[in-house]
């Protein structure tokens, strides 16, 4: 019996070791369409993605991720390598004094936003990975980006078909299956050369590539999804080695930060839906202060919902309506507040978006967003400032390829025009429109 237990656990131990080894060898920010997944499965981009370009997932895309990125057409495609590159034009309502960023003008900037290289696909029969490294063309630095290495198996639990798995990743919610959670949420790319609101909840991107976590997940009966993970902050030397610069003066995650996820979902053929909750609890050493000076404490609790309607399930390039929503509430406790009355704070972010993908080719989308919370603290640049921001994002995206009858199967393009409209920006209504942004981007993706 003992030998049998050891045999059963050996694949799990081997998987964890392999996942750790992969993370050490290599090192994402936004999720994108990855043509090596398309090559591995023999499926066009539209099979997995709404609008035939990532990262918005359809039911098959979620199943592919759930099962560890290993589903294939049975042919050999190793190694699964891919690349993406995108450039853009940004116009803001008002010039940004001193330039939109170093090396850029005060307005009307063209940029090569990002060039990314991926290992995305199977490693072994049950182990797969999405590993992205990115050259940031605005910051002019190369760094590890979103990474999610998975081991997944199918097993009966209480006599019901279930999928369980392990994930090793560097960003809370990067492992998630739905596009309502922060890392894979709309908008799927945005201008790095436009002003953005100061206040954001911690789970809304601040942990990206700053942590390493291991989690376990179960999808039971295609109805209930649970995931639990523990994250540790990466040391400054590690972050420097992985290209995260500057490290000095940035926040550090102290100790272990637990992350949780619970979702109820189902696919009914033409329609699928999800409602759920997720969150994280983290101790943060502010501004890179020396250890021992006290840590701030953040608890983020969120709820989310998704709905998708596919007009013709037998047609991969069918029209699809998608809607996503989330609300994130953050409770903040500060170890050394500049004003004693500000030892506690809170922040709430709400977002909701809807898109209508026409023939997986033209996808108009609209989003409403709002953030509000307590005065001062880390939420505002000034002691009495308010963190409130709100507005809308309107976008039209065009992807000519990625369908069963497309002329090319080895790559894809996405041309998008986006308009970000602010009704309030960092507590100010007057002048909020100065931050309105026109962002036009062209994204190319291909596999090797």
């Amino acid at each position: 019996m003992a030998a049998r237990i050891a045999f059963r656990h050996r694949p799990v131990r081997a998987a964890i070791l392999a996942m750790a080894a992969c993370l050490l060898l290599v090192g994402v920010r936004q999720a994108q369409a990855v043509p090596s997944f398309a090559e591995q499965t023999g499926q066009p981009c539209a099979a997995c993605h709404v609008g035939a370009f990532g990262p918005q997932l359809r039911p098959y895309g979620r199943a592919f991720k759930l099962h560890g990125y290993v589903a294939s057409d049975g042919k050999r495609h190793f190694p699964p390598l891919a690349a993406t590159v995108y450039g853009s034009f940004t116009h803001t309502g008002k010039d940004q004094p001193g330039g939109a960023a170093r090396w850029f003008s005060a307005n009307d900037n063209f940029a090569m936003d990002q060039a990314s290289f991926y290992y995305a696909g199977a490693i072994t029969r049950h182990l797969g990975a999405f590993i992205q490294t990115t050259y940031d063309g605005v910051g002019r630095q190369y760094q590890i980006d979103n990474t999610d290495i998975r081991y997944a198996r199918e097993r009966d639990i209480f006599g019901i078909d279930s999928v369980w798995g392990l994930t090793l990743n560097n960003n809370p919610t990067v492992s998630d299956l739905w596009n309502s959670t922060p890392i894979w949420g709309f908008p799927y790319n945005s201008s790095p050369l436009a002003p953005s609101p100061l206040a954001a909840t911690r789970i809304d991107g601040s942990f990206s590539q700053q942590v390493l976590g291991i989690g376990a997940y179960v999808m039971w009966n295609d109805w209930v999804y649970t995931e639990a993970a523990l994250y540790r902050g990466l040391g400054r030397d590690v972050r420097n080695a992985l290209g995260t610069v500057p490290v000095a003066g940035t926040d550090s995650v102290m100790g272990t930060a637990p992350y949780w996820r619970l979702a109820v979902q189902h696919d009914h053929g033409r329609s699928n839906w999800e409602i759920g909750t997720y969150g994280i609890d983290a101790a943060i050493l502010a501004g890179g202060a020396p250890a021992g000076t006290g840590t701030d404490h953040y608890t983020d609790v969120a709820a989310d919902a998704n709905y998708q309607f596919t007009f013709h399930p037998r047609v991969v390039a069918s029209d699809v309506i998608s809607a996503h929503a989330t609300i994130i509430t953050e409770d903040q406790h500060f170890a050394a507040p500049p004003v004693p009355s500000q030892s506690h704070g809170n922040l709430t972010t709400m977002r909701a978006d809807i898109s209508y993908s026409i023939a997986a080719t033209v996808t108009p989308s609209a989003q409403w967003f709002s953030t509000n919370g307590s005065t001062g603290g880390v939420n505002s640049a000034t002691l009495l400032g308010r963190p409130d921001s709100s507005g809308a994002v309107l976008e039209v995206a065009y992807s000519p390829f990625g369908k069963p009858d497309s002329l090319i199967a080895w790559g894809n393009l996405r041309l998008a025009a986006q308009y970000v409209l602010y009704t309030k920006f960092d507590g100010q209504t007057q002048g909020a429109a100065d931050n309105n942004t026109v962002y036009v981007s062209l994204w190319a993706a291909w596999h090797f």
Partner: protein
Amino acid sequence: MRVYLLIELLAALVPLAAAVAATTTIVQAGQTFSEAEVAVKVGDHVKFQNQDDVNHNILVQEGDDDDNARDMGVQPPGDAVDVPFDKAGKFKIRCHIHPSMKMSVTVQ
């Protein structure tokens, strides 16, 4: 003379055997199988008809051992795959490409 008689007897049995073996057709559409489970007899066939506009790839798995599943190869849109079941048992049918596509065949 005996040899000719034996050959004639065998030749007569071949169409008889073919007539006895039944074929059940399962449609693959919308990335699902048209049935969740079917029961057939030993020697029967199950035909999988791809009515999607993307490839499928049938795997036939006996018991829980998914490492030794029989791979029926890539099945382009419009193609059918005929799978004979020559022994009794419960078989899981899945698509290698679409892991959510599952059904079972019970062979009696």
